[in-house]
């Protein structure tokens, strides 16, 4: 069982950063960490691969960033491919998917796992775009995955509950947060991760045309950035044992009781 997990390295969400007014993209000149959303996919892959299988990572990030990849390697993944290339600046979700799909295809995996969406960009389209580009079947929003021979059996989140979905391998599955409990990297794992192979590749290495990615490849452009109308703060009171009465009175005023 050869599993590839797509991981994104993002600015720390506790410090969400800002848009660069020049380029109209997220400022990324800060240290990047593993997107917490991806820790579930890494954990799921490690559990599904067991002792026999291999788990490798694919990521696209500027400036040869590997901070987030090292975290996932410390959890137990064996190796990583990092696509880092100045030509990728300004890439939209579709271009990102093209780059990741090309990098994933190099290892012909049985299973590709991704998060449902990243925590910083959250377009939520990249996993399905990767599947389409690789001509793979897919099951998105998995809340449970089991492998049965050459078939993935997935419980897929729906508006009203879940669907049981069967999908032959190779395929792509995107997993929701909380689907498994991600392990904390052990000290041994952290030390071992430093020696694990991270292969850095460029757009040209993947056989893609630099003129078709980045700003040039994006079929959309930002027209304007504006402050949204702000919502005013109301009354704030300190609880002195009777705040619940104020809430009841407020609900009464709104006539919802």
């Amino acid at each position, binding site marked *: 069982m050869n599993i590839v997990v797509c991981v994104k390295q993002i600015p720390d969400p506790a410090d969400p950063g800002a848009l660069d007014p020049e380029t109209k993209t997220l400022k990324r000149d800060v240290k990047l960490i593993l997107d917490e959303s991806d820790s579930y996919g890494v954990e799921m892959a490690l559990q599904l691969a067991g002792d026999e299988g291999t788990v490798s990572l694919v990521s696209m990030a500027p400036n040869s960033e590997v901070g987030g990849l090292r975290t996932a390697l410390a959890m137990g993944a064996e190796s990583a491919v990092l696509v880092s290339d100045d030509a990728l600046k300004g890439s939209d979700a579709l271009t990102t998917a093209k780059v990741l799909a090309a990098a994933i295809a190099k290892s012909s995996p049985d299973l590709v796992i991704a998060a449902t969406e990243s925590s910083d960009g959250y377009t939520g389209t990249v996993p399905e775009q990767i599947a389409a580009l690789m001509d793979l079947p897919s099951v998105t929003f998995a809340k449970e995955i089991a492998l049965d021979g050459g078939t993935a059996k997935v419980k897929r989140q729906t508006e009203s509950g879940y669907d049981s979905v069967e999908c032959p391998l190779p395929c792509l599955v995107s997993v929701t947060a909380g689907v498994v409990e991600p392990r904390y990297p052990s000290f041994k794992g952290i030390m071992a991760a430093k020696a694990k192979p991270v292969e850095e590749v460029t757009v040209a290495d993947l056989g893609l045309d630099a003129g078709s990615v980045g700003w040039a490849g994006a079929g959309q452009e930002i027209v304007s950035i504006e402050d949204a109308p702000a919502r005013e703060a109301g009354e*704030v009171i300190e609880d002195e044992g009777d705040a619940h009465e104020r809430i009841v009175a407020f609900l009464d005023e709104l006539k919802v009781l």
Partner: protein
Amino acid sequence: MGLSKIWVFGEASDGTVASITLELLAKARELADTVEVVFGGDGDAIAASVGEHGATGVQATGDLAGAMQGVSIANAVAAAVEAGTGPDAILIGTTYDGRDVAGRLSVKLDAPVITNVVDLEVAGDRLVGTEPVFGGVTNVKTGFTGDKVAILLVRPKSFTAEPTGGGAAAVSALAVPDGGAAAAAKVTDRFVEESDGPKLDEAAIVVSGGRGLGESDKFDMVESLAKLLKGAPGASRAIVDAGWVPYSYQVGQTGKVVKPSVYIAAGISGATQHLVGMKGAANIIAINKDPEAPIFGIADLGIVGDVHKVMPKLIEALEARG
């Protein structure tokens, strides 16, 4: 890009059309003369309902026999575009199936998707979508640069559904080309999780809990209060990530967008991730022990206090009223 025909991805369960579909129809009518629904199922089942909301046609695939909506609808729409019978733009809700459709279709047409749209306008001769970033404090407007079919993923609750009183939409058959290996996933069974209250994104009152609850079994307080108020329980991302409640409870940028008349945030600090999913509520009540919590910046009534003291008393007071 001319904009004469818009398709809306239709979603329904048991013959009831989803509110997101009706919301999209309301906006589509403002933008184009011809508005049709593309539907992965029996078109006759929804023709009256979508017709009443302004759709003149339903392009229906018929029963998909367990095939996934995403790959089926994308292949069908791409074939229609190829044949010259497709739309100029397609509006898709940010839902589980909607995102699959948008992702697959984007690859089929080699066209970008503008995502997380909360407002839409025609500027010059192109569609421009508004996307909130940084928890909704900044709006980014994005337009398409090419002349391909415009694909937009629109967040639920962005527009208000409004009937036009139109007659049933005309149903046409939309062929689904053979999807090959990519279409091999099949739904074998569907499970509806029983819930005795309203759905999270439709409830008039939402009570959400966050990390400030301290431990997972304290979420019971959130559920009790929601039940007393005939509302729905929700959650911040922090406690979904921690595994206290399922992903389906999550309110926020990742998760559900809610616009109830009353939103009660218990032990939620108000990370930007959360605010973008609930700041559209008509009234917000927040209980948090940290007076500096960002949630107080948007709350109509803020209680600086311990949820473990305030919530039980509130529940007791409401129970006493019957």
